[in-house]
């Protein structure tokens, strides 16, 4: 620990911590324009200069680590003068269009111009025409851009898209899409969030409201299990319509991130619902008649608890297939790991330098985890393995130290066995298991290419003067040269059949060797493909063993927003009975937040309550938009299982035996500290549970898929019928395949097709993705309405029949 002083306050720093970081942590203000705590110091604005006693000149606080006993002064007459001059320079030619600028009222340039009392543009320089760029959801105005570089850094260092860069040109510098004619990225919109001025803005929000008119509601994103922190910003809809409307979403961009679905897909509320007493009576009758409640994981913990109470009182079967599969997976994981829950969270991945992912299309399934993965690879110079049947160029672009293994569907057991084989201490593993791993090993001839220098002797004709006669004559001389030559050589190496089962690339071991030598902190990420896998039980137990016998921390990503909460709170049933009430599910009687059921329910942006997210954190969310219809608690009251007035009265009753704490909703924290600590709700407690080593099965020989195989996976920005409903993301789902897939399925780009699987059939537009490879197609389903939730129970890969629509 380094002790030093800022403005005579004694403070301490960790080794390497900068003066600015300490100041922020201690709540001491130092002005900045380009500083973004979540990326490396950019150092372009120079506003954060400070004085250090005994040091001549000014020291850049964002970049300078603290040294012992220095005395830092953050403000003085001279510092003020310089900062004022820097602001004067920033203001050179900055367009005076604050009146119509989207950023007005929350603009850093405006704020600092005010703070340093720059009241006129004293200098000017001849300007040039700068064209406004239209980048889909984003607009870039280079004349407003102050080149702070935050957007470029966040895109590369945090998100991993690395989609924009600065085109250097002194006074003409601007932001441009990197190696592309227009912006081609995953459209997370973080560049908009971090832009201190009005240069990068949301096109949808432009000219719709002044920043200061908006009301900010802190909430948790409803779209995936990351449940990221965000603010819904609302205002009345129009002069004639006083009802509030969400205008945009913002996030605490200094400390945390948000993906495009959260940022752009915000208006999924159930608008116009009223208290229809007649319908409510019908609903109660349906409940009385029903023996089953079917529901989704797009509900709060409190609603899940209400459903559980209903079950306890009336014996309903609670059916939520996706959450049940996840719950079972967690239980089997506990059986071998001895822990009630997995331990890894996003911070853990963020700080690790080796990450393995199995069974998840990370880019689509959980962007937050992808961002953390990016940090591990790029910022921590780590490496990783991405096991997935579908090659993903976005994931592969995270870095060369990430090895992509595109195995066939159903081969995930081999992947987990491989992790054990590579990383578990063999002595501690159950004997049968290490014997099994040994039995998979064999000696293999491997062809290696070596460059050797080969001696080549050439006969060259040369003219030589005969020393006696003085005549020139031609003689043949041998000239030797060493020529580098590639030769193939065969060597014997120990190999495991697991790699063959996984179709691992030839250079798998070689590529990993270097990466593994630097491995310090490792995380294994498991995803949705595994929970509905025919071998899910064995996979979960293998994961438990990995947790127990390797230094990997494991993360088991909840497949939907609150699957973890539902899995912990509800006792779930497998099969529906005779008569089912559906909560956002197709059923005999339907409660719906999408507005197309029998009785209206509020969407998650109209509810308060908590969500249990992927980080095992119980996070609060609040009501962004008013809802005038009935809520689940009203039904519970009518059916006598609730005496509470509000749903959030259940927060304190969440089951402590599952790791929840008896805290009142209103006592939950919901903010980030300047030291980047997340103070949102609380973390579930992990308990030790009884465990056993046995019952692990060998890899099963599963029959290979025959026919046209598709993988259920949503496109980036989409998660469910809720994202599909929002106006900025109103595009439909497709069937996507490689050229090879198109050939095999006899399809052309743009064909309308009918995809049949099980007893379902959906119509899709077929699209060829030239970056895709292999024969597995991607089936996007998010826009199927409530019937979407019915297909979540199946294995994500399915054999389908695809016919062209006539």
């Amino acid at each position, binding site marked *: 620990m380094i002790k030093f002083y800022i403005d005579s306050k004694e403070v301490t720093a960790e080794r*390497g911590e900068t003066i600015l970081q300490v100041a922020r942590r201690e709540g001491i203000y130092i002005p900045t*324009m380009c500083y973004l705590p979540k990326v*490396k110091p950019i*150092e*372009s*604005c*120079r*506003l954060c*200069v400070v004085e*250090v006693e005994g*040091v*001549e*000149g*000014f*020291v*850049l606080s964002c*970049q*300078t*680590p603290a*040294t*012992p006993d*220095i005395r830092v002064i953050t403000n003085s007459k001279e510092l003020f*003068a*310089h900062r004022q*001059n*820097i602001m004067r*320079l*920033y203001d*050179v030619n900055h367009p005076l269009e604050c009146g119509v600028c989207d950023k007005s009222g929350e603009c850093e340039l405006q704020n600092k111009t005010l703070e340093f009392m720059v009241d006129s543009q*004293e*200098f000017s*320089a*001849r300007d040039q025409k700068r064209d406004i760029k239209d980048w889909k959801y984003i607009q870039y105005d280079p004349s407003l851009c*102050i*080149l702070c*570089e935050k957007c470029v850094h966040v895109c590369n*260092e945090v998100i991993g898209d690395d989609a924009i860069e600065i085109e*250097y*040109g*002194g*006074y*003409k*510098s601007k932001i441009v899409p990197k190696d592309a004619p227009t912006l081609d990225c995953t459209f997370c919109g973080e560049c908009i969030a971090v832009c201190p001025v009005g240069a990068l803005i949301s096109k949808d929000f432009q000219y719709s409201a002044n920043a200061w008119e908006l009301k900010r509601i802190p909430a948790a994103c409803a779209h995936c299990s990351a449940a990221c922190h965000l603010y819904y910003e609302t205002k009345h809809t129009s002069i004639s319509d006083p009802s509030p409307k969400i205008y945009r979403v913002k996030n605490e961009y200094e400390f945390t991130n948000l993906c495009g679905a959260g940022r752009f897909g915000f208006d999924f509320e159930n608008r116009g619902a009223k208290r229809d007493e007649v319908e409510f009576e019908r609903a109660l009758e349906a409940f009385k008649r029903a023996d089953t409640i079917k529901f989704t994981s797009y509900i709060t913990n409190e609603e899940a608890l209400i459903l559980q109470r209903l079950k306890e009182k009336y014996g309903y079967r609670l059916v939520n297939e996706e959450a049940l599969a996840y719950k079972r997976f967690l239980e089997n994981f506990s059986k071998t790991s001895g822990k009630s829950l997995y331990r890894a969270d996003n911070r853990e991945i963020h700080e690790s330098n080796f990450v393995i992912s199995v069974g998840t299309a990370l880019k689509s399934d959980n962007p937050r985890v992808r961002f953390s993965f990016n940090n591990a690879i*790029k*910022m*921590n*110079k780590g490496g990783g393995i991405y096991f997935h049947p579908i090659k993903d160029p976005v994931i592969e672009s995270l870095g*060369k130290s990430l090895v992509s293994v595109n195995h066939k569907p159903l081969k995930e057991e081999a992947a987990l066995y491989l992790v054990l084989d590579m990383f578990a201490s063999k002595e501690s593993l159950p004997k049968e298991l290490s014997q099994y791993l040994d039995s998979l090993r064999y000696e293999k001839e491997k062809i290696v290419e070596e460059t050797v*220098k080969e*001696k080549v002797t050439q006969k060259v004709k040369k003219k030589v003067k005969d020393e006696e006669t003085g005549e020139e004559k031609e003689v043949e001389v041998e*000239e*030797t*040269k*060493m020529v*580098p030559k590639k030769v193939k050589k065969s060597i014997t190496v120990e190999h495991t059949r697991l790699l063959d089962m996984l179709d691992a690339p030839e250079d798998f071991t070689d590529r990993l060797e*270097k990466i593994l030598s630097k491995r310090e902190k490792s995380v294994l990420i498991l995803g949705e493909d595994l929970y509905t896998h025919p071998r899910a039980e064995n996979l979960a137990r293998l994961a438990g063993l990995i947790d127990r016998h390797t230094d990997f921390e494991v993360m088991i990503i909840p497949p939907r927003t609150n699957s973890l909460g539902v899995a912990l709170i509800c006792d779930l049933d497998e099969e529906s009975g005779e008569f089912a009430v559906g909560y956002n599910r197709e059923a005999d009687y339907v409660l719906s937040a999408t507005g197309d059921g029998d009785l209206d329910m509020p969407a998650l942006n109209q509810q308060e309550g908590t969500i249990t997210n992927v980080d095992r954190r119980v996070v609060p969310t609040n009501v962004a938009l008013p809802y005038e219809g009935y809520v689940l608690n009203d039904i519970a009251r009518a059916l006598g299982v609730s005496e509470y007035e509000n749903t959030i009265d259940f927060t304190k009753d969440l089951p402590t035996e599952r790791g929840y704490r008896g805290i009142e909703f209103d006592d939950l924290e919901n903010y980030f500290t300047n030291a980047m600590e997340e103070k949102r709700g609380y973390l579930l407690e992990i308990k030790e549970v009884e465990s056993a080593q046995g019952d692990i099965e060998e890899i099963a020989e599963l029959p290979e898929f025959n026919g046209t195989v598709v993988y259920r996976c949503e496109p980036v920005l989409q998660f469910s019928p809720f994202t599909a409903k929002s106006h900025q993301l109103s595009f439909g789902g497709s069937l996507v395949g490689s050229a090879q897939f198109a050939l095999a399925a006899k399809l052309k780009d743009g064909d309308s097709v009918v995809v049949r699987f099980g007893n379902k059939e959906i119509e899709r537009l077929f699209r060829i993705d030239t970056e895709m490879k292999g024969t597995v197609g991607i089936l996007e389903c998010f826009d199927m309405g409530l019937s979407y939730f019915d297909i979540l129970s199946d294995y994500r890969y399915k054999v389908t029949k695809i016919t062209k629509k006539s």
Partner: protein
Amino acid sequence: MSKVYFSCWRGEIVDNRGKPKEEWAESAFNFPENYNIDVASKAFIGWDGFALFDENVDVVRLAAEYAKQYQLYSEACGRCAPGRWGGRILYDLFDKIARGEGEKSDLEHLKEVSKTMMETSKCEIGKTVPKPLLDIMEHFSEEIESLIREKRASKDYGKEVNYIAKVTAPCMDACPAHVDIPAYIEGVRDLRFDDSLQATRKTMPLAHTCGRVCPHPCEDACRRANLDEPISIMELKRIGADFEDEHSLFWLHPKEQKPLNGKKVAIIGAGPAGLTGAYYLALEGVACDVYEELPVLGGEVAVGVPEYRMPVEKYNKDIEAVSSLEGVRFITGKRVNAEDMRRFEKEYDAILVATGTRISKKVRAQNEREEIRGYWPAINFLDCINLYVKYGIEVPKEIREKQNLDLDKPYVDLSGKTLVCVGGGFTSMDVVRCAVRANAEKVIMLYRRDEATIIRNTTYEEYHEAVEEGVEFIFYSAVEEIITDEKDNLKALKVNRFELIPDPDGGRPQLKKIEGADFIIECDYLVPAVSQSADLSHLPEEWEIEMTSWGTIKTDGKTYMSSRKGVFAAGDCEYGPMTIVNAVGQAKRAASVISRYVHSGEVTLTDEEIMEDHLRSLKVYDKKEKITGWLPGLPRAVSEKLTVEERKDNNKEVNLGFTQEEAIAEAERCMRCYYIAMVAI
């Protein structure tokens, strides 16, 4: 010393205004008074002030042009607010005054903006550009104010004056290859390792090698040393090269190779100078045939520098980068003779001699003869060891016989033997440390001077690592006589001891023999490694190529052409035994000159090169300069090394290099000391 009309530089002001030219006082600094042989300079302006060589210089225009140069520089950067906008305003306002449209308030603005730029800019270039401008405003205020008062344009405004500018930095200036050091460090800092390597390769193709074994003169000229400790410049260089290697990004050349233009050059020697010459000539579209005497490429660095210090696999990467270019052809195992040279002169458009210095000088002891069994010149000793260690090439039988080696072993095994090396430079360090690894029972280094000098001549690390590995150093000593037996086997050495007698006049202390302190060392080998000389027997006598007094090829040290037209020389055969980076720098320059010579037959330098030489003679680094705006006390990053036990019996690379975290932290210490210098002619 320079004759100036007016100058203001590093606190010295020379003001000869109003005096007749004969009475002008001189400045102590070597300003570029003459731009080149036939062109005189009018003025010089740079980061610390300016100098006028003639009374008619338009100082306002000079200031405006200097500000414009910064503007041009920042076109390629623009990475901080004060620099980006401040530079623009400096230029606009000076130009406005020079146009005759200036106002009094402009002067105030100029001063204010200058002050902020000087205190807060990101790199030294933004901090120093305002300095000479403020100096001009101070010393020539009357001239400036009269323009403003009379709304008059300055006298040269709109006229054709040639201004030539160059960006430099203390480290770049001190580096014989003038590597753009701040740029490659910035690449590391920004995690843009490809940019980093490309910045290095602009002037230094051997990034792996000079990221490992360079004696880094740049670090002696690092301004950070004025504050605390110099940046670990050398080691940051290998980050980019290792990145290319680890990620198989072959090859990150600094620019696209030009198509071959039909011209070709013969290069004699494939050491650092030959490789560098081939690299930059080929990039310019000139084909090169590189002739190498040894069976392997790389010259002395390949066979001299031991594996543990410079893994050959890494050096080969540098060599592969050269050979990846079209038109580069290597012919190994070919000793070029005078007859070949005569032929080359006809067949090629130019010849670059880069044969190094491969004759070990004698230690000047009595009875010192090549034939003695156990007398083993350093160059041959290292050849024998390293050709086997690195390439598996066996030690020739006749050498094994002559040096009493085990005839059953194809390599040098010194088990049970004592080896004495006489030296004190890098080569002798390589000898003793290789001897340790060849299992020698005892290894002794005799050196005439003291420990501090040996460290200065090599590096601290090198010396300490040798001591750790068990090499015995005997200082203030020299061999008087070599004692042999009847079969002419080396048996012992008679060694004199010396003491240092300080010169009462403050000169260099003198070594004086201590009478009666002589002693005998019994040993099996004596390896002379005091210095090397050049073997230039391949130069045809009738060419009468001029030589220096120490037997190297004489050139002008700028264009590197010898006294014979079309024959150039670079590296140790020109300079005498020196460093890799020196050879690279010379060969890079020679390649540039040759690339023009093959077309025009003229020997010319570019403006960039002329300025490079001027600045070298002015010296960019100022040891006494006080550094402001940086917090002292951040320690220099030290990379992890193998421990003695891990390294002394093998040839694993000793230096493991920086981790990413260390590299970035170290790069963050760099103060980006770019400067602009400009000459008006």
